């Protein structure tokens, strides 16, 4: 029986038999369907995925007509992270002119709203300079990052220290105070960037500190949408479901803890977001066929109920892309094609 060469979730090569690939595809979609209480992929969709992995080509692409647009999180920082000495404005020009980017994004190296607050004027100047030199739409991106609001980095008692002591009410109160302050900081920075001319605000890695982090993003978006009815906001998520670090937080009557992308997108719409960026995590000990089948099941369910454009995260360790600093093109291109064509994505 022929062997299929694919990869594990950590990016390393693995050889699988045809039946092993089919079995992992079945198990991946079944896992997502069970966790999310959503429909598994159809026989035809699983066959599509099988054919994709069985294809001998090193690189695959969508069929003409199925292309989508790309948005980036922290795009301007990634060239500098590779130790290439370019300024952020030049980095975005490289994205626009060399990498074929449909949109670009300016972000501070700390990539959180709170630390941008004291240097917002410098960030605005860089944004304005970029707007003069570029043509494609420009986002300003940062994370709510609620972790910065508790001690030792912030003013409130640290819930991670209170919870092991059984001080649950105090931990919850700390989270609730942090939500209000984070929302204020997001509104402050996003307002400054929008008034300087940004085409959009990307609230990225939202929910990294669980349900209070997600709530801070939703609250800030609601305020920004009232303040600037035409503002474009993209909500990028941190993980596939909302961690219940508080556990009882609700938004307009919906409990946030445990929500998967197809529920998260409805709240994103309610808060006024323009684009939703769901995440499905990679399991490094499982194969890419398992991971991709699982990720597509979640994202397809999300796209089916979304009224706003959906741009799933497909960087390192999410969306069927291996958790590796150098994701290989064989599996990235397969993940890209399959996610776009099965889910009918708007972008990624």
């Amino acid at each position, binding site marked *: 029986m022929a062997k299929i060469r694919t990869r594990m979730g950590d990016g390393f090569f693995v050889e699988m038999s045809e039946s092993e690939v089919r079995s992992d595809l079945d198990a991946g979609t079944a896992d997502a369907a069970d966790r999310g209480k959503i429909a598994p992929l159809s026989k035809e969709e699983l066959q599509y995925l099988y054919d994709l992995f069985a294809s001998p080509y090193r*690189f*695959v*692409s*969508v069929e*003409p*007509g*199925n*292309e*989508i*647009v*790309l948005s*980036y999180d922290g*795009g301007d920082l*990634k060239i500098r992270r590779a130790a290439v000495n370019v300024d952020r404005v030049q980095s975005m020009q490289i*994205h*626009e*002119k060399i*990498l*074929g*980017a*449909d*949109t670009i994004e300016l972000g501070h190296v700390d990539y959180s709203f709170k630390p941008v607050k004291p240097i917002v004027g410098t960030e605005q100047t860089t944004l*304005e300079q970029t*707007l*003069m*030199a*570029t*043509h*494609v*739409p420009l986002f300003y991106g940062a994370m709510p990052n609620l972790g910065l609001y508790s001690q030792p980095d912030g003013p409130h008692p640290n819930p991670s220290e209170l919870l092991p002591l059984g001080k649950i009410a105090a931990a919850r109160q700390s989270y609730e105070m942090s939500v209000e302050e984070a929302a204020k900081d997001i509104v402050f920075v996003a307002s400054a960037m*929008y*008034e*300087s*001319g*940004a*085409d*959009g605000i990307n609230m990225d890695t939202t929910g990294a500190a669980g349900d209070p982090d997600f709530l801070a993003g939703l609250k800030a978006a609601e305020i920004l949408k009232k303040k600037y009815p*035409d503002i*474009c906001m993209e909500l990028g998520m941190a993980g596939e479901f909302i961690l219940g670090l508080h556990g009882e937080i609700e938004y307009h009557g919906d409990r946030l803890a445990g929500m998967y992308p197809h529920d998260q997108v409805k709240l994103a719409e309610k808060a006024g977001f*323009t*684009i939703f960026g769901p995440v499905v995590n990679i399991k490094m000990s499982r194969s890419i066929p398992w991971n991709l089948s699982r990720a597509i099941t979640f994202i397809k369910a999300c796209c089916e109920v979304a009224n*706003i*454009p959906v741009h799933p995260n*497909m*960087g*390192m360790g999410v969306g069927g*892309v291996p958790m590796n600093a*150098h*994701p290989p*093109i064989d599996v*990235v*291109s397969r993940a*890209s*094609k399959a996610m*776009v064509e099965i889910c*009918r*994505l*708007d*972008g*990624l």
Partner: protein
Amino acid sequence: MAISHAIASGMGGMRAAGDLVARMQMTRGMKIDEAKAYVADKLSISVSDLTDPVLMTDIRQDLEIGSINPLPGCAKGLEAKIRIAEVLDIDINCIRRLKNKGLL
């Protein structure tokens, strides 16, 4: 990785019409098919032409909406974005800002 995605499934940015389609998602909340149809209609081309860099290079130069290798005198930066706003009939935030300051 960004390059892999751009080649596997991207619209090509301003090599073609990817930035214009992205603007319709961002300003009007359009889903991808609606956004492509809108841009194609405004440019008087077919949807399949939107990702053709050869055709789009000529169109972008003719309409002065910015191109990868701009010739001397071609619209660049803000000048090109003023034209993009006109061609797509949308508000572009930084251009609106100039108008509000009485500079346009």
